[in-house]
């Protein structure tokens, strides 16, 4: 980021802007090590919140998207960096593992979304998938290993 230190906004400002823009939403905020603040959202709010972060605060650096099978669903964590870490957390229930893609806003998200689709079975609507990424071409052909390697019920 070509932001100088003076352009980095304190987190309180960002939170105030989010609460002003989305008055009906509950934002649960937690500060965690090492230098991150987690905001828990509902899945429908992720795209509007990221659009706000991009347009108003120029927070464009998405470090990665983590997919984590937590037992009662798949938790998706969008890790952003703007002088300090901001992580957006959502929980997708097993019956509804769908999310809209971010690749039209942040093209760099495509590999992260493809990996989560392959390893955890989350469908990203609008994501272009030319083929398997990490898993081999013959992953299930011989009745072999589990469908989604990082899912819990498959023994992960």
């Amino acid at each position, binding site marked *: 980021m070509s932001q100088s230190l003076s352009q980095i906004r304190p987190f309180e400002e960002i939170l105030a802007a989010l609460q002003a823009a989305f008055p009906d939403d509950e934002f649960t905020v937690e500060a965690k090590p090492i230098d*991150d603040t987690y905001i828990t959202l509902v899945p429908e709010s992720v795209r509007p919140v990221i659009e706000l972060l991009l347009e108003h605060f120029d927070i464009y650096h998405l470090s990665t998207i983590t997919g984590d099978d937590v037992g009662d669903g798949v938790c998706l964590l969008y890790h952003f960096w703007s002088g300090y870490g901001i992580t957006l957390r959502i929980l997708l229930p097993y019956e509804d593992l769908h999310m809209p893609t971010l690749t039209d806003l942040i093209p*760099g998200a495509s590999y992260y979304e493809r990996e989560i689709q392959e390893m955890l079975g989350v469908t990203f609507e609008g994501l272009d998938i030319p083929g398997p990424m990490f898993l081999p071409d013959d992953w299930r052909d011989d009745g072999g290993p589990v469908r989604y390697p990082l899912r819990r019920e498959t023994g992960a």
Partner: protein
Amino acid sequence: MSRITVPIGPQHPLLKEPLAFSLTLEGEHVIESTLRLGYAHRGIERLCQERTYVQNIYLIERVCGICSHVHTTTYCQGVEALLGIQAPPRGLYLRTLLCELERIHSHLLWLGVQARNIGLETIFMYAWRDREIALDIMENVSGGRVSHAVNIVGGVRIDLTPEHRDTILKQLDELDRQIDVLLGVIENERTFEARTRNIGVLTEEQIRRYCVVGPVARASGVDVDLRRDAPSFPYDQLKFNVPVRPEGDAWARTLVRTLEMVESVRLCRQLLTDLPDGPTTARAKRRVPPGEVVSRTEAPRGEVIYYIRSDGSDKPARVKVRTPTLTNIITLPDQLKNIAMADVSVVISGVDLCIACADR
């Protein structure tokens, strides 16, 4: 003109690691390209869930052979944060010393490989000969040339005597002289410039859209370096510059990496002369209390990020690894557009690929 598809890899003299490209050419120029990862996918994230935190250090070290120390550094940093402990200053200084030495060795390795792919075999031989000095220092410090096994949760397992320090400072002087020679070649040698200028240009806009990290971003004018932007001890005590170039081509990337080596030697000297006294490791419990942590460091190729979640047992519930090569490799299809076939090798190696890192 008719179109031909040229496959490159997974076994190819250009690549040390298995990676498959498919280039569609019209005449001599590349129209489009696709790449296939996954040849080196070892399922490390899943393996981490089946082993204890201590066993995982050995596994994480082997995500990549070139940047092994920085992976264990990020991992141990994260686990220490979960445990609520801090490694003692001497331990952190030694950890950082190896991080910087690894940066030097990785950049010299890359410089040799890049020069070889251009056809300048002499620079390859010189760079790898000078790399042996860095490997000697690392062997002096840790006992291993490539795999150091220095990090433990709570600090480092090695220590340096004053004689050790003096030997290493002399070796650093020699390394400094050799890096200066290589810097002179890159800045002044016309053959090198002719092969790398204006090849594989990435604009600042592309860097932002693809969230590119590391020397590739710094060579396109984006001034980002986690050592300075997220300063943890001891980087907040040390003086160093972050080289940034505006051109965005393969030549700028080479120059940025070589200047970074000069800065790394400077950092190593500071770390050795200001080495604090005291223990090198703090006690760490085997069972980690429930929690989650995001740990970031600046590896030779860019930002490495680890997300670790613990559930109170002695095995992690989730370890997520994202390496800089996975972020940077997405720019390759863009960089390869309209490149002549003869320049494909320069572009592919300019990004400093470490496929073992990307595939995990």
